[in-house]
């Protein structure tokens, strides 16, 4: 899910958290570490922040249903962006944080955002016991001792017109994308560290202006960090995480480029957590029906084909207006899956002007 990096960059530039522009980031990384292939991820340490890398996130999306069967989407994201390598305590702000939270129903989309500097306690992440927070939003581990800290989570967030409080339990193992967590993002070699916990079952409560709703369903947590992730030529992306009815899962993205064909990548996840990574071009993503959202045409329907898995499906937005009215806006919302496989999932689209 490293495609989200650009969003972070853009937001951080806009909030003034970055001294250099995006162009600077595309070419060099001033003392920051870079992802290397063959570097094994170590848990629970890697659940925590990596302050020597420029950017990082804890990204949770959930497909939920209310007691009456109504669909809900839920998002909780904490972005970390470093101004300088290393974690300093105090107000000098070498580390900065940004968070997004959203709840989507078939007809409404609630979203909000928060910003904070690191080092003063207002926002931060600890690996073990795992805890990620900004203001009163939190993602805390509820896992038993000896378990992976991400095996159970308590997640809350609050916006001006909504809030939620959910508990998550992982029914499967962590999964690593790409080459044991080393995920390549372009033909010229940009990459990130990328792993997920896609096996959460969720119960909890969402408060909306219309009243509280008890919800349950599935969730997917992405963890990713890097310093120099994108090719300057790349203009935007389309990313999906899918929970199929048979228990298998798929992560796929498509990076659009100014000069070349789109770069795609995918990870197939067995119900047991066995993964298969597919490189550029294996997953076919074809935009379908477009709709005018926030004054731009967005494909709210996609056709996905993965021949090796006999997959040919169509995904469609549950609420086409899942527009994040944040400082840097983008589309993020729950989708339904029909075709060779049934299921639900999340779609993210950025860079559409």
């Amino acid at each position: 899910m490293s495609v989200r990096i650009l969003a972070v960059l853009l937001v951080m530039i806009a909030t003034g958290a970055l001294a250099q522009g995006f162009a600077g980031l595309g070419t060099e990384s001033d003392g920051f570490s870079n992802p290397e292939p063959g570097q094994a991820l170590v848990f629970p340490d890697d659940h925590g922040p990596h302050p020597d890398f420029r950017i990082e996130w804890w990204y949770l999306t959930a497909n939920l249903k209310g007691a009456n069967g109504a669909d809900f989407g839920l998002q909780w994201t904490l972005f970390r962006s470093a101004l300088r390598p290393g974690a300093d305590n105090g107000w000098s702000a070498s580390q900065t944080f940004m968070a997004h939270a959203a709840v989507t129903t078939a007809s409404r989309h609630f979203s909000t955002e928060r910003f904070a500097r690191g080092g003063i306690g207002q926002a931060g992440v600890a690996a073990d016991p795992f805890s990620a927070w900004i203001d009163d939003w939190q993602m805390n581990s509820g896992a038993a001792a000896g378990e992976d800290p991400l095996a159970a989570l308590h997640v809350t967030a609050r916006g001006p017109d909504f809030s939620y409080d959910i508990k998550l339990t992982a029914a499967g193992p962590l999964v690593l994308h790409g080459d044991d967590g080393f995920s390549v993002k372009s033909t010229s070699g940009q990459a990130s560290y990328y792993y997920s916990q896609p096996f959460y079952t969720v119960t909890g409560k969402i408060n909306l202006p219309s009243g509280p709703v008890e919800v349950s369903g599935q969730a997917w947590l992405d963890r990713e960090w890097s310093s120099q992730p994108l090719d300057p030529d790349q203009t935007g992306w389309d990313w999906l995480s899918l929970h199929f009815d048979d228990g298998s899962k798929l992560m796929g993205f498509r990076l659009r480029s100014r000069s070349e064909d789109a770069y795609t990548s995918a990870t197939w996840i067995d119900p047991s957590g066995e993964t298969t990574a597919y490189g550029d071009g294996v997953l076919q993503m074809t935009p379908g029906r477009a709709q005018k959202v926030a004054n731009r045409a967005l494909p709210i329907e996609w056709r996905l084909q993965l021949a090796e898995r006999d997959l040919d499906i169509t995904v469609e937005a549950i609420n086409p207006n899942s527009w994040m009215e944040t400082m840097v806006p983008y589309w993020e919302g729950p989708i339904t899956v029909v075709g060779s496989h049934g299921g639900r999932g999340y779609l993210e689209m950025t860079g559409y002007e």
Partner: protein
Amino acid sequence: MIAAGISALLSHWHYRPLQLATLIVGLALATGLWTGVQAINSEARSSYDRAAAVLGQDTLKRLQSKTGLPITADRFVALRRAGWLVSPVVEGTLRLGRTRVRVMGIDVFTLPQGATSFGLSGDTGIADIVAGNDLVLVHPETAEALSKSGLNLRTSLQVVPGDLMADIPTAWTLLKRQDFDYLLLASDQPAGLAPLSEIAPDLERIEPDPQGDIARLTDSFHLNLTAFGFLSFAVGLFIVHATIGLAFEQRRTVIRTLRALGMPNRTVILLLLTETLVLALIAGLLGVVLGYGIAAALLPDVAATLAGLYGASVPGSLALRPDWILTGLAIAFGGALLAVGQGLWRIARMPLLAPAQPRAWAMASLKNSRWTAFAAAVFLLMSLTTAWFGGGLSAGFLTLGTLLLGAAMLLPALLILALRLGARTARSAIAEWVWADMRQQVPGLSLALMALMLALAANIGVSTMVASFRYTFTGWLDQRLASELYVAADNEAEAEALRAFLAERADAVLPIRTTEIEIVGLPVFLYGIADHATYRDHWPLLERGENVWDRVAAGDGALINEQLFRRGGYRLGDRLPVAPGWTEEIVGIYSDYGNPTGQVIVSHDRLMRYFPDIPKLRHAVRVAPERAEALVAALVGEFGLSPGNILNQADLKRFSLRVFDRTFLVTGALNTLTLGIAGFAMLAKLLTLSTMRLSQMAPVWAVGTTRATLARLEMLRTVALAFLTWLVALPVGLALAWVLLAIVNVEAFGWRLPMHIFPADWLWLLVLAMIAAGFAAAIPVWRLARTRPAEFLKVFAHER
């Protein structure tokens, strides 16, 4: 028919281009000065609005500690973690060289919407603010003043001049602090949070302040300017009224003919009205251009005034704003219509066969002047009453207004009385005629003379006020700036070394320690002073208790400045809440001119015990005056102190007086302009009357007086009237000065000044007034002296 009517009516101007010019110039002048003042006010107000809107102070509530103590950084984080959307601000003043700035430390991460008026998005200057390179945002004008400060400056037009915006850690470094003054409260808070009264009972919510302190402080100043603008406008209207009245009078024949030929009265009036509006448009546009010029020329001085008197920052450049352009045009139209109204009314009611001959000469109606004198007396009585019983700035201005109005209305009666008395001294027929004729001229000239009187009185009043102020200020500076040198170190270590260095070379080194506190919601500067003869001998105390200096030295009493004394309504012996858990008895009050804020002086040791972290960088140095230069050289050469850190007394006084003089430059300029316009009003009126004057003088000429004599007498009369007007203006001006010094200043600035009298200035003004009157009379007199006998003869022979 309408076309014929238009050309018949307009032909008038063709024959009287001077009248047309007078009309347009008069209206343009009136509009111009008014517009200029409005443009200045509008520029200043927009800058106050910007200042008031800094960090959303005009719309956002804030949280402040009830005790007035700072809020810790942990407190902020705890409130955020509790879900409250708050954003911390640390604020303080900083002296950088000679520039005093307000430092505002902000947290761009949490700044609520509505506080981000300097534009968070897209402004890359802002992007750098948290980059850890101690960047500060300032207005370009401030950047210029701080160019040698060594700060990492970035300019933004969105920052108020005099403000310095920086990220919290940068501001902390500059202010040497680690905490916050208040927290901004975002207007949209999430639902379901624990109430603040539970989690932060020690903090209180402060309501937003839509106006801002500066706007309130400077109200009186702008009222002043507006009053001046209005005065000029009124004077200008006299001109227009006179000219338009004459033009209507002279066109009666044409109008009668038009009507006799069958043009409806309505059409005639409509044509005249249209003509007025077109003239007003032309004059209004000219006036707006003129106003822009005046405002652009005066604004730097106004900015200096505002900075000097109130600490308000207004940029010295003028922006074109639709508000004053439109009001300028509107007032031109309004003025023209007001001036033309009477004439139109007369024409509307004029019977078809009314005699076309103008009423020869308005008689000095005794009844009329008695009535005016009675109204004048009422106004003057009102003025006296408000001066005696009234309180507050509005009462001060009411006193001023009624005084001027009453005096102006009394003027004709006074002049007639004086002329009547003068006539008794007449021994010859000609002298008798001159007096009588002057008296007869009074009603016709009274408006112009009133304008002149107002301009003269304003001049005398304001210049007496300013001169008194300057006189007092100069004396006060001598007392206040008793030390020979003022030196500052850049850091504590250097300060330590500096004290050691000076200890051997100077007679005394007096520490200057200051911090900003708040007393009943107003910012106040708290000073700690050492016990030294410098203060005991020189400090300008207005009121003192017993053993005042011993008590201050013993840490048992505080001195406060006059501003704080008046604003707080304190008396000697009252206890002043200096800080939480610290009150001091007020043992003395000192004068403190030119300073907008309150001050408190306590003993140095007492201050440092309570505020141990106050920077110990600034010092006053006593040394024999003749050795001061050598000490400065030693400080720079031997000690290595930057010359910018040393101020000597003479420089400081020069600088202060320069600031003072600049401060009042604008008043002087407006004074002169108003006087000029009053002169022009005289000219316009005299020109208007000059044709009528012919029939007054022809009989005198016919019975054996030369035209040259008549012209000389005419000049003498005008100048004599100006002289008499000046005589009346003198006491009015002095009364005005008294009201300004004793009422308006106290309310506006917080200090009362003794009144000093400068008769040389009055004589100079008399000369100016006579010159103005002489100039005004020059053209009509010149025309009179050159009038051909045939013109005089027409008076006797023909119906005009």
